């Protein structure tokens, strides 16, 4: 399996001198092509920090991060913007979409930034919206959509550039359980049918059980790792709950 992402001895400190928080403590792991990984852990364990560092919105203090074999920790600010544009797809918990743009415009924005031709843009838009079943909402503005619909639009936007990896920080955080489940099915579809590589942070054991692999963080270190293998989702869910109980954090149990 080809390596997509390599996290190598990554450490991240916050603050200076007197109060220093070690948010990540020489973490190492790898993400292969087509993987679907969930990162779980108690509040404050460093999940968002890890994701932000990979997303290059935050700087790491030590270690290396490689995407497609390319070192990203020493790139310049300008190159990083292009890196995000070309290599990454994002789904956040909230405020994923620009409310002044229509759904269609939100989805095609990354292509506009890449300078993709009108024709190609149109083709990819139709392709992606058909697959995700959102073509009826294209002319609407985000405010007119439900939370679940909005997240699905965010998925479409994350997918449209064919990124090397899709990063999702608590994508279901603002959704009820029915909508969470639908969104996870979408992500699963993206992973299985469209072969997207997904790295997702979540609190929710059920949400985590959709992933193929779950990394547990504690105090900025990888504390445990679960592989789904051939297990049923139900069994995976139970395993995650059991691990979380052992972890003893304040993570949601649902």
């Amino acid at each position, binding site marked *: 399996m080809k390596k997509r992402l390599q996290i190598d001895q990554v450490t991240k400190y916050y603050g200076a001198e007197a109060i220093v928080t070690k948010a990540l403590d020489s973490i190492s792991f790898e993400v292969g092509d087509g993987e679907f990984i969930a990162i779980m852990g108690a509040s404050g364990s460093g999940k968002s920090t890890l994701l932000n560092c990979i997303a290059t919105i935050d*700087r790491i203090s030590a270690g290396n991060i490689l995407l497609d074999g390319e070192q990203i920790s020493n790139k310049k*600010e*300008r190159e990083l*913007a292009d890196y*995000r544009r070309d290599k990454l797809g*994002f789904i956040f918990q909230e405020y994923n979409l620009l409310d002044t743009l229509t759904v269609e415009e939100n989805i095609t924005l990354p292509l506009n*930034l890449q300078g993709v031709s*009108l024709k190609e843009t149109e083709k990819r838009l139709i392709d992606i919206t058909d697959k995700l079943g959102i073509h009826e909402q294209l002319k609407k503005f985000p*405010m007119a959509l439900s939370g679940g619909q909005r997240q699905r639009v965010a998925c479409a936007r994350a997918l449209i550039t064919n990124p090397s990896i899709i990063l999702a920080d608590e994508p279901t955080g603002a959704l009820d359980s029915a909508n969470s489940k639908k969104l996870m099915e979408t992500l699963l579809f993206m992973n299985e049918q469209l072969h997207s590589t997904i790295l997702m942070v979540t609190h929710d054991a059920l949400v985590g059980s959709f992933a193929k692999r779950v990394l547990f963080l504690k105090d900025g270190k990888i504390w445990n790792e679960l592989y789904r293998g051939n297990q049923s989702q139900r069994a995976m869910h139970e395993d995650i709950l059991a691990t979380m109980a052992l972890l003893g954090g304040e993570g949601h149990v649902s």
Partner: protein
Amino acid sequence: MYRKLALRNVRRQIGNYLIYFITVALTISLIFAMNNLIFNDQLQTQAQSIAELALGLVFLSIIICIIIAFVLGYANAFMLRLRKREFGTYLTVGMKRKHIVKLFLFENSLLGILAMVVGFFVGSLFYQGLMLLMTQLLDIPFEFSMFSLKGVLLTIGMVCSIFLFSSLVSSFYLNRVTIYELIHGEKKVEQGVKHPYVAMLVTGVSFVGIIVSFIFFSRELKNIFLEVDSNPGNLVWLMLLLTVSLVTFHIGLAKSLMYILLGFKHFTQRGTNQFLLRQLSAMLSSNAILLGALSFLIVFAMIAANFSFLYKEIEEANLDKQYPFDIIANINSEQEGSIPLEQAKETIESYVPIDWSKVYNGYSTNERTFHKHTIWQGDKYQDVDMYMKESEVNELLQELGSKPLNLDNQFAIFSDMPGIQGADFSEASFNHKGQTYTLSHVVESMPMFLWSYFVIVVPDEVVEGMEISQTAAAITLEEGPFDAQKLQDALSYTYKIEENNYSVLTSDYRVKEQRRLYAAAFSAIFIVGALYLAVVFILLAMAILALKILSNLRDDEKKYRLLNRLGVNEELQRKTLAKQIFVFFTFPIVVPICLSIPITIILNQFIDLAGYSAMLNFNIVSVSIVVVIGLIYFLYFMVTFGLTKKYVIQRR
């Protein structure tokens, strides 16, 4: 406890409070300066003798009051909007509504009082500047005064009543609004532009309205000057048409321009263009009425500035035309009480020595032959043709330093009226003792020597046998200070009108210096007033635009953060933000700047019609006004952009 909370809030959001504070303090200082000016003792003394001055001052204070109501009301609404979420949070954690209202009012009055103190301080500086300008224009000595009590009281009264009113409105709102609305804001569902084609139509029609109002204004102006079936009231209607068209034009354009641009897919689907257009579309269409009103304010600021300069220039030129000599006498000896020339000369000598004087006559045959060639024909006009001797005219011209006439069996027409352009004397000729006299030339910009629309200057022998119908005298005085008003009063007399027993104060002697002082006073108030209003209008427009942009900071920050994550680099973010603010800022000023061209054309036409084209060139003034406005505007844009950039542009 709430006080502590309030103070802490002020400290925390210092940036936003600062902008609010500066706007309010600046507005208060501008009003404070004006109110002090209105109640200045020196000016009040002047105003007693000049009714227009007093009236002008009252008019100014009314306009100022409307402006302050507008800005302060606006600034308070901005403040409320800024703090909605905070108040929502207080409510959710259990604070009572009445406490929140109290908190808000306490804070606002705290800031209000502070702004008033600062405003008074800065305002008294403005006031000294204004007084310096005024005294210069009025030709009176500058007497230092810190402020006037009445001005202070009036300002406090104005500011307090507006603060009270907007506080009432805010507390009413805070007592009724739901927590949800406070926290989530009015979750407007962005719908795009609703009726873009209607808006486009409105824009088109309004554009025609603007053009039509200028064309007809120009035509009407011409008619008024040439006195052909004119109706000055139409000018008011045309101004109204211009106002309405300007506002509707901007509303229509704000609601359709971006929609049209969004149709150009090749342009929009490049980089952040689509985002930019959508941002602008939302900003412009939700502020359409405001933008229309601002562009109207800017246009009128420009017109006011132009006309005030024009007025001053014309006033000066006009003085020389109507008062060619230091004193002009048109002696009406039949009138009881009229002062004979010899007696008048003695009176004058007691004020200032006479340098030169000349008595001259207007002759007539009691016919109206020449009037028939002019616009002053028909039953409305009773005046008879007035002749002057070439030799006498030449003596007057020589004293004025002009070239003498050399009429060789011809006659010349002198007039100070623009209406003379409508006359055709090519057919006019007359016989005297077997000699035919034809037209030599018409002089349109001659000083007024006699009370007549025009005079016919003829070789001396022609007036033989005509009756003397007017006697006039021109007097020049030696240099030296004298009380022109007292002299004019001394040369005046009253007579009674038999039928209704009214007493009329009149004078056959017109003292140029007295008129000059009077005109200077009038143009001083006119210029200072108009320029001050223009400045206030423009500052107001920019303050409101800046407040608008700054009150969107939080939203914009979120948007640019998202863009940053999607891979828009810092430079592109900065460019996009600059374009966004620049277009929003320039939107209400582009049309006014373009309109400076027709405004200048009309001003030049006015100058031409009034017969000053040789003396005045107004293009430079118009251009400088545009440049000054543009410069102030650009500075304001840079400041707003600088402030916004700091908050909005994302880097890690």
